[in-house]
C-alpha cells in the first residue's frame, strides 16, 4: 500500500501507475518460469523435472507424443493442478499460493472442450465472462466480437450441442479470450479435427499471435508446432529432450533432407544394411529403419536417391523431402510422434 502510493506520486499518474505497480512478470522478466517441475500420480512421474520459460509475446510449444506429460505440465501452468515438486512462477506469482490471482490473467483452451452444451453459443461466452467478474455492459458487445472472431455468427443463438467439432473448438478458443488474457494456453488445439477445420483454427491462432498474445501450445502434430511456435521444447516420458526454434532443432538434430524408401515388408532391414555397406551414403548421412519404410538422412536427397537406384536397389516407392520436427523427435527418442 505504502509502496503503491509512493510509486503513484513519483509518476504522478492515477490508475496507470496503480496498474504498473503490480509487476505482472517474473523476476527474470519472463511470464512463465518452471525449474525442476515435477508432477507424480502415485508411482507415475508424469512430469519429471522440466525447466522452461516463456517470454511476453512469445508463441511457445510443447511437442511430444500422447502421454509425454504435456497436458499435465499445461494444467500446472493453468494454476489448477498442484505441482509435486520444483518451482513454478507465473506472472510473478506462485500458483500454489495465488491460483485465482493468476487464473484471472489466463485464457485456457483444454484438450477436451468443456463448453456448456445446454445453452447457446452467445450464452456460453457471457456466462463464462461472468466468472471473471465482468459486467454485462462489457460482456454483451464482447460476446458479439468473439462470435465474429470464431466465425459463428449464424450459430450465435444455437445450442452448443448442435455445433460441429470444429465450431466447438473455435468457440472454446473464443471463450478463452473473453477476459482479454495475458497468456493463452492451448492444449492440443486441433486434435480430432478434419484438415479444413484445422486450417481455419490455425488462421485464428495466427491472428492472435500477430496481435502479440502470448501463446503456450501443446501438440503432437509437428506441422502445427512448425507453423505456430516461435520456440518449443520436445517432450518425451515426462522429460524435455531438446529446446529451440523449429529451424534450429531441425538443424541440430536432423539432416537437411530425408529420402523415404519402401521396399516392402521384411526387406527394409536387409536393404538398409546393404545401402550402408555399399558406401552409398555421404559424409554424416545415416539410415533409420521403420517397420514400413527406410529413412535416409542426407544433405542432398535427390543425389542420394540416384546413387541408391544406380546401385541396383529398386524401392517400390520413394520420396525426397525436407527434414521436419517429426525427424527430430525420431532422432531424439527412437519413436515417432503419432503412433
Amino acid at each position, binding site marked *: *500500500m505504502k509502496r*503503491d*502510493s509512493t510509486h*503513484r506520486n513519483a509518476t504522478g*499518474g*492515477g*490508475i*496507470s501507475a*496503480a*496498474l504498473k*505497480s*503490480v509487476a*505482472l512478470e517474473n523476476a527474470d522478466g519472463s511470464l512463465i518460469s518452471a525449474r525442476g517441475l515435477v508432477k507424480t*500420480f502415485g508411482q507415475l512421474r508424469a512430469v519429471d523435472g522440466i525447466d522452461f520459460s516463456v517470454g511476453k*509475446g512469445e508463441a511457445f510449444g510443447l511437442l511430444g507424443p500422447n502421454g509425454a506429460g504435456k497436458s499435465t505440465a499445461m494444467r500446472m501452468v493453468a494454476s*489448477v*493442478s498442484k505441482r509435486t515438486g520444483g518451482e513454478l512462477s507465473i506472472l510473478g506469482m506462485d500458483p500454489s499460493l495465488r*491460483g*485465482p*490471482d493468476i*487464473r*484471472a*490473467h489466463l485464457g485456457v483452451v*483444454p484438450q*477436451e472442450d*468443456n*463448453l*456448456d*452444451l*445446454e*445453452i447457446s453459443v452467445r*450464452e456460453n461466452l457471457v*456466462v*463464462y465472462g*461472468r*466468472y*471473471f*467478474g*465482468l*459486467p454485462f455492459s*462489457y*460482456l454483451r*458487445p*464482447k460476446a458479439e*466480437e468473439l462470435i*465474429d*472472431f470464431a466465425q459463428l455468427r449464424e450459430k450465435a443463438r444455437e*445450442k452448443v450441442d448442435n455445433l460441429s467439432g470444429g465450431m466447438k473448438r473455435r468457440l472454446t478458443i473464443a*471463450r478463452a*479470450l*473473453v*477476459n*482479454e*488474457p*495475458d497468456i493463452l494456453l492451448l492444449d492440443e488445439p486441433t486434435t480430432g479435427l478434419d484438415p479444413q477445420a484445422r486450417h481455419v483454427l490455425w488462421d485464428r491462432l495466427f*491472428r*492472435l499471435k500477430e*496481435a*502479440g*498474445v502470448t501463446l503456450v501450445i501443446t501438440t503432437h502434430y509437428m506441422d502445427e508446432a512448425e507453423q505456430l511456435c516461435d520456440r518449443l521444447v520436445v517432450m518425451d516420458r515426462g522429460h524435455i529432450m531438446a529446446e529451440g526454434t523449429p529451424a534450429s532443432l531441425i538443424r541440430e538434430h536432423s539432416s537437411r533432407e530425408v529420402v523415404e524408401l519402401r521396399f516392402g515388408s521384411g526387406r527394409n532391414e536387409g536393404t538398409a544394411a546393404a545401402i550402408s555397406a555399399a558406401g552409398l551414403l555421404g559424409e554424416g548421412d545415416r539410415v533409420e529403419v521403420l517397420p514400413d519404410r527406410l529413412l535416409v538422412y542426407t544433405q542432398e536427397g535427390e543425389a542420394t536417391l540416384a546413387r541408391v537406384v544406380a546401385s541396383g536397389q529398386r524401392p517400390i516407392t520413394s520420396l525426397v523431402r525436407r527434414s521436419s520436427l517429426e525427424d527430430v523427435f525420431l532422432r531424439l527418442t527412437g519413436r515417432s510422434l503419432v503412433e
Partner: protein
Amino acid sequence: MRAEREDAGTAAEGGPAGERPQPIGGAAAELRAGGAARAARGAAEILGPRRSARSLLYGVWYVTEHQLVIMRSYFTTILMGSVLNPVMYLFAIGVGIGAFVNSNAGGRGPGGVPYIVFVGPALLASSALTVAFEESAFPVMAGFKWQKVFFAMNATPVTGGQIATGMLLAMGLRVAFTVAAFWAFLAAFGAAPAAWSFLAVPAALLGGLSFGALIVAFASGVEDDEGWFTIVQRLIIAPMFLFSGTFFPLESLPLGLQWIGWISPLWHATQLGRVATYGLHEAPALVAAHILYLGALQAAGLFVSFRNFDRRLSK
C-alpha cells in the same frame, strides 16, 4: 485505497485520451479494437489492479447465475412438473386414500386431522427432497464427468468451494420454487389450515438443502457412474419415502424400524412442516432438534463436498 479507486475512476472515464491507461492485456485489447463491435473499456481496466477481486467476492453467485441460465432453457418442463406433481399426489393420496382413511376413523385421520392435512406437509417435503436429488446428482455428475463444465469454471479465478456452494444455492432456488408452488396447492386443497402454514416452505427448503448437500457430497465423490444413482434411488430414497412418517405416524412402526425416520432428513422436514401447516404439537426442544439436525447434515455435506471438489479439480 478508496481514494485511489475514485482517482482511478476519473482517470479512466473523464481523463483526456492521451492519459488513458493501457490495459494490461494490451495485446488482446488491440485485437479487440479490430473487431466490429467493441466494449467501451477493456477487461483489465474494468477489473482493476487485482483482477480476481470480484470473482473472490461473488464467485458463488456467478455459479448460481450460470445454473439459472441453464434452467431458463428448460423452464417449461420445470413449470409443468411443479404444477402436475402436487395436483397428482394431492388427488391420489390426499383425496383418494384420504377418503378411505377418514371413513374408517370417524372423519379424522392420524393426529386427529383429515388425512390430506396429515399427509400434505409430508408430500411437500418429499417433493423438496426429490427435486434436491435431481438438481444435485445429475448436474454434479455432468460437471465432473459428462460435460466437465466444473473444470471450465475452475480455469477462471473461481475456486472449487465456490463452485460447490454455487451449485447448492442454485439447487436451493429450484427447490424453493417447487415447494412454494406445492404449498399454494396445499392451501388451495384446504390442506394447510394454520395461519402460519407458509412456514412449511422454508421447512421443506431446509430439508431439501440438507439432502441436496449430502447428494452433492456423494456425487462429487463418485468417479465412475456404475449405476450408483439408481442404488441411491432404490435403497435410500424409496425407503426414506416409505418409513419417514410420510403416510402414517412414525410411532405406528415397530421401534426396530423407527430409527429410519430418526436419521431421515425427510422425517425432520415433514414434522417441521406439520407444526407449520396444522399446528402439530411438538415440544419446542424437538422442533429445535429437527432444525439443528437438518443444519448439521447440510454442514457435513458441504464440508465433504468442498474436499471432493478441491481434490478432483486440482489433480
